[in-house]
């Protein structure tokens, strides 16, 4: 029979536990302090700075120009109709992703319930996750540009009448939305399946005895039991609400003006400000660092109440939900 730890050895054990925790976490905490805490402080500071090309260094704006970067952000956002449109485009693109969430859970449910071809569907739905988003996006681009054009011609259409879905300014945004919807449908398949598989068998059995159909099982058992995970999804979805980029960088590249004007999202526009055309360490792009950081910071601050509001709403709806 195993003996229990004595009181003295329990004290030593607890002290050792403290030392163990501190020593194991020391490196991770130091890393977190540098790459999260300091990075965010640096982020805030950069929002008040500009790059001096002649001196080759960052300098703070002084006096009344202190909020210059924020001023530029608001000016562009509200006074420049192009940038306002980018902002709305990003939100629409993100809403499309949000619209995929219920369908992706339903897809996972069909696989979880082992309906015909479930195993095959599982592999197919997981494939876009393992393939690079860039590969999937460019495959889609070429398929729409050339594959569908070929089918159109095979059906008797004339090549010159085939719409330019990727490059035409009036059609490209719709194509990008279709792409976001199409690639958003698999969702987080593994997490959904993993969570569903942990629903106790007893509950499902009770549902069966009550005569639940698959729809009723989905609505009254699966979704409520997945509530904590749904909460995480919803909170996560709001974090990208204002700066969603979509597949634009993969499909149109980093050349300014490559994407049709109507498709540009605010996230893509911001990315191009920092790494547009030539890459990360290009001198000229540094002139935009302060501005993009101010925009990022403002968007982050605006998002906080939205996220906390959503969290409160979830708590009110089901206060027992836990992580």
């Amino acid at each position: 029979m195993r003996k229990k730890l004595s009181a003295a050895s329990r004290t030593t054990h607890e002290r050792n536990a403290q030392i163990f925790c501190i020593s194991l976490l020391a490196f991770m905490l130091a890393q977190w302090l540098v790459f999260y805490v300091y990075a965010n402080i640096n982020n805030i500071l950069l929002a008040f700075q500009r790059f001096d090309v002649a001196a080759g260094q960052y300098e703070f704006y002084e006096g009344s120009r202190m909020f210059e970067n924020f001023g530029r952000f608001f000016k562009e956002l509200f006074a420049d109709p192009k940038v306002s449109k980018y902002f709305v485009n990003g939100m629409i693109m993100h809403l499309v992703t949000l619209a995929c969430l219920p369908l992706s859970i339903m897809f996972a449910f069909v696989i979880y319930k082992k309906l015909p071809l479930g195993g095959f569907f599982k592999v197919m739905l997981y494939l876009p996750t393992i393939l690079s988003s860039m590969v999937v996006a460019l495959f889609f681009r070429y398929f729409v540009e050339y594959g569908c054009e070929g089918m159109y011609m095979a059906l008797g259409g004339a090549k010159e009448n085939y719409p330019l879905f990727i490059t035409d300014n009036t059609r490209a945004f719709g194509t990008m939305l279709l792409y976001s919807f199409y690639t958003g449908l698999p969702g987080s398949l593994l997490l959904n399946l993993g969570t569903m598989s942990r629903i106790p068998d007893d509950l499902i059995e009770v549902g069966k005895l009550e005569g639940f159909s698959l729809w009723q099982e989905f609505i009254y058992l699966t979704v409520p039991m997945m509530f904590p995970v749904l909460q995480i999804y919803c909170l996560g979805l709001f974090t990208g609400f204002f700066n969603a980029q979509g597949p634009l960088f993969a499909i149109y590249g980093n050349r300014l003006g490559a994407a049709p004007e109507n498709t540009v999202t605010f996230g893509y526009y911001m990315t191009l400000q920092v790494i547009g055309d030539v890459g990360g360490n290009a001198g000229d792009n540094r002139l935009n660092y302060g501005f993009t950081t101010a925009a990022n910071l403002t968007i982050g601050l605006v998002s906080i109440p939205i996220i906390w509001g959503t969290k409160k709403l979830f708590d009110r709806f089901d206060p027992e939900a836990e992580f």
Partner: protein
Amino acid sequence: MENATKKHYKRYKPPFTWRTVTRKIFPVAVWSLLLIWTIVFLAQLLWGLVTSVKSAWGFYIDPIFFPKGKEMWQFSNYAAAFKNIRVQITNTETAGFFRMLVNSLLFAVGNAFLSVLTAALASYILAKYNRIRWVGALWAIVLITNYLPISSSTAANIKLLNDLGLFDSMLGNWLWSCGAFGAVFLMYYASWKGLSWGYAEAAFIDGAGHFRTMWQIMLPMTRTIFGVLFLMQFITLWNDYMTPLIYLPSFPTLSYGAWLLQYTTNYETADITVKIAGLLLIAFPVFVLFMCFKEKLMGSLTIGGLKG
């Protein structure tokens, strides 16, 4: 009597309401939608595969179906893509396929291993030592930072890495990836929570210390989840072309090279068939990896678990 009841059930027809229709249609509708999605996705993949082995002329004549005739096939598209996946680092320095392959492996294996290891260790402490007050407080901070939408901008990250002398450094990138408190942490945390502390208590009674208990008893019991998370991270990083493009300009990876190939317009790479072959070249290794570890990868994973 029993027969009469059966008869009664047979005769009974539920009233036609939208609710009954929803019940009946739901599985069929979702299944059909799933089938359509799968067909479109497969058609796209198959079209890409066929196109990648077509000659430019064969593609021009028939952009959809299999090449007809020997001269329409062109497997050398892969060789052309292999040769032309290259990145100009400086005016005099260019990275070719093999250099990018090494960079890809260093980037993906190093970052994946370090990020999962640090997440495993940190989540172990937070899941199993939460009786210690400051550990409990740390858990609250982790949750808040994970759901706060504030993260430093790309520009601020570039500046930070430059300030620390870690920009364009693989070591710097590894250090950066050691962030233990992200999504991998939450997944590992859930698996630690599901593992009984009784094993550790038995080890303590037998005289094992905290470190030995973690390293020799507890951590090996989560090797499957470690492996799955490592593979998932590896695949994500292998596919990541943005991080090398932004933060590692001297260490271009294959994904970055394949992306750049799409915008390269020299004689050999102008054809769409070569560009698609380039995309498949970088997709192939992860596809093989996926097929080898399909069962493990698609096992149970959960964040946060279930209610109740």
